[in-house]
């Protein structure tokens, strides 16, 4: 292959949930690399997931690359940006694809500044044209619209892919046998400029991992009614979430916020109570296998996404759902 490679970059937080999202990026990376006639590389910065070789093979990765350095263990940005800048100087990839997370949203953008290359966040798709030009589709206006950016220039382009935007698919036919290599970088000159005084205390359970989520919105009318959402979540063995207005108004903590600027979830069941279905919110739950919605307005946008709908006041329905959920268990 002669064209510069498409590189999917995985960094930090390689927890149980990462491989699934990484595979989405690898699936998209494979599509772009084959359109460009280029190889697909998977660069793992720091700790690799245990099953990396297996994942790489079923995603058709040609080269599995690794950068390891003690300075990358802390998950801080300066070392990562420097390591990636050195990687790009050595290998000149055509496209760097990240899974968008809280951390990569910053480092991918900073890397673009360092390299002078085009970058797009909130990506949902990437297409390569015949001439090799890249077009990136991204969510805008909180998901109300999609915008298409054309990335100019020959420099390494950077795209951060939204969670749940691409369905991971294994390569058709035979799996690949990726080469393995370590990429040497010199991070001796890096001194992190941001000092962590108090790290975030990771909660035990994360909304992102919940199998059942009950979320409340403005339709709850007042803060004390949020307890109905919590009670139903508890009765169903799930977790309670909220739309952004509830967080903005201080009803609930921001760790409960589902949406583009909050948590992007993919539960089996998502029950939306008194939520209108604004795109900003739906970006955080549209990937749920089943959405059940309760809203007084039969024309509410939430019903366009829902499998089951109840037209009614969630303050009347929720207590009955709690009762029904507790019965016959």
């Amino acid at each position: 292959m002669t064209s510069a490679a498409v590189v999917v970059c995985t960094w930090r937080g390689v927890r149980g949930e990462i491989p699934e999202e990484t595979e989405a990026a690898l699936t998209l990376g494979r599509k772009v690399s084959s359109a460009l006639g280029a190889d697909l590389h998977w660069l793992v910065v720091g700790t690799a997931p245990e099953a990396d070789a297996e994942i790489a093979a079923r995603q058709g990765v040609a080269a599995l690359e690794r950068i390891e350095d003690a300075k990358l263990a802390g998950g801080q940005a300066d070392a990562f940006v420097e390591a990636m800048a050195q990687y790009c100087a050595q290998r000149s990839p055509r496209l760097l694809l990240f899974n968008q997370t809280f951390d990569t949203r910053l480092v991918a953008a900073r890397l673009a500044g360092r390299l002078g290359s085009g970058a797009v966040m909130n990506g949902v798709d990437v297409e390569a044209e015949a001439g090799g030009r890249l077009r990136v589709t991204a969510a805008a206006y909180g998901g109300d619209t999609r915008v298409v950016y054309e990335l100019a220039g020959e420099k390494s382009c950077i795209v951060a892919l939204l969670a749940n935007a691409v369905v991971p698919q294994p390569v058709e036919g035979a799996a690949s046998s990726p080469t393995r290599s370590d990429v040497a970088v010199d991070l001796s000159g890096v001194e992190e400029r941001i000092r962590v005084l108090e790290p975030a205390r990771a909660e035990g359970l994360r909304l992102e991992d919940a199998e059942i989520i009950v979320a409340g919105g403005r339709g709850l009318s007042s803060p004390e009614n949020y307890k109905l959402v919590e009670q139903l979540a508890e009765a169903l063995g799930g977790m309670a979430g909220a739309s952004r207005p509830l967080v903005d108004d201080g009803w609930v903590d921001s760790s409960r916020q589902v949406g583009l600027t909050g948590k992007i979830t993919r539960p089996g069941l998502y029950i939306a109570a008194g939520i209108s279905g604004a795109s900003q919110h739906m970006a955080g739950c549209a990937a749920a296998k089943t959405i059940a919605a309760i809203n007084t307005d039969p024309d509410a946008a939430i019903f366009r996404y829902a499998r089951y709908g109840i037209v009614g006041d969630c303050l009347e329905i929720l207590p009955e759902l709690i009762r029904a959920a507790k019965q016959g268990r």
Partner: protein
Amino acid sequence: MRIVVCAKQVLDPDAVNNYALAGRLVIGEDGKTLTQTTIPQLMNAYDEQALEAALRLRDAGADCRIAVVSAGTDPTTLLRHAAALGADEIAAISLPSSGQDYHVIAALLAAYIRSSGGADLVLCGRQASDDDQGVVPALIGEALGMPVVTVARSVERAGSSDRPAVRVTRVTPDGDEIVEAACPALVTISNELGEPRYPTAARKLAARRMKPTIVSPDELSLRPEDLEPRALLTRQYVPTVQGHCEFVPGNTPAELADRLVGLLREDKLLQ
């Protein structure tokens, strides 16, 4: 200390959202811009909160000058609003005729900050509510060699008078994180900062007399490559959602709830 707040004018996102919810959001003939002329233009709410963060630093006793800068077609209303809220300096950067993207915008803002006396602290909104990209602050930080601290719920002074620093509480997915960075630094502000203040009538009047400094790209000694767009918006569209909702029938809340739980149990979604 000098604090520079970068602000963008956007279409009122709530109005856009209402049009979208009603299925009436229309893209113009150019295939890129929203055509609803009735949607008002506002200061991006996250940027307004960035200005609020600057004003709170001043309220807390920081001896500071606050400059608000915007690169855009007609930011006068936005800058007047910033002045009414308490900005000491307001500046408008006109856009280059060669087209722009957020790389160009970031280059213009960084060059303005450098040429207008620098900044000990640059505050930006975490992202603009129109494109949601959030890339510009990171690019400015890189251009000015500043550490970039994102998604803050609060910013406080730290360090000493000869070695100023900021202490920032960040809203991370795992909860709040407290970090410190030496100045000069760039911090992006999130909605968790809380409601920004309203300008008083007297300040609104006074702000009318304040003239923004108009800066042309030619004055900013930029390299030609700084003015080359790298991510050009070529198309915008409204995604369609295929509805397939089955409305649960029933006459009472109890009946509706029992039916829904029954359906969810049939689908093996509930035990």
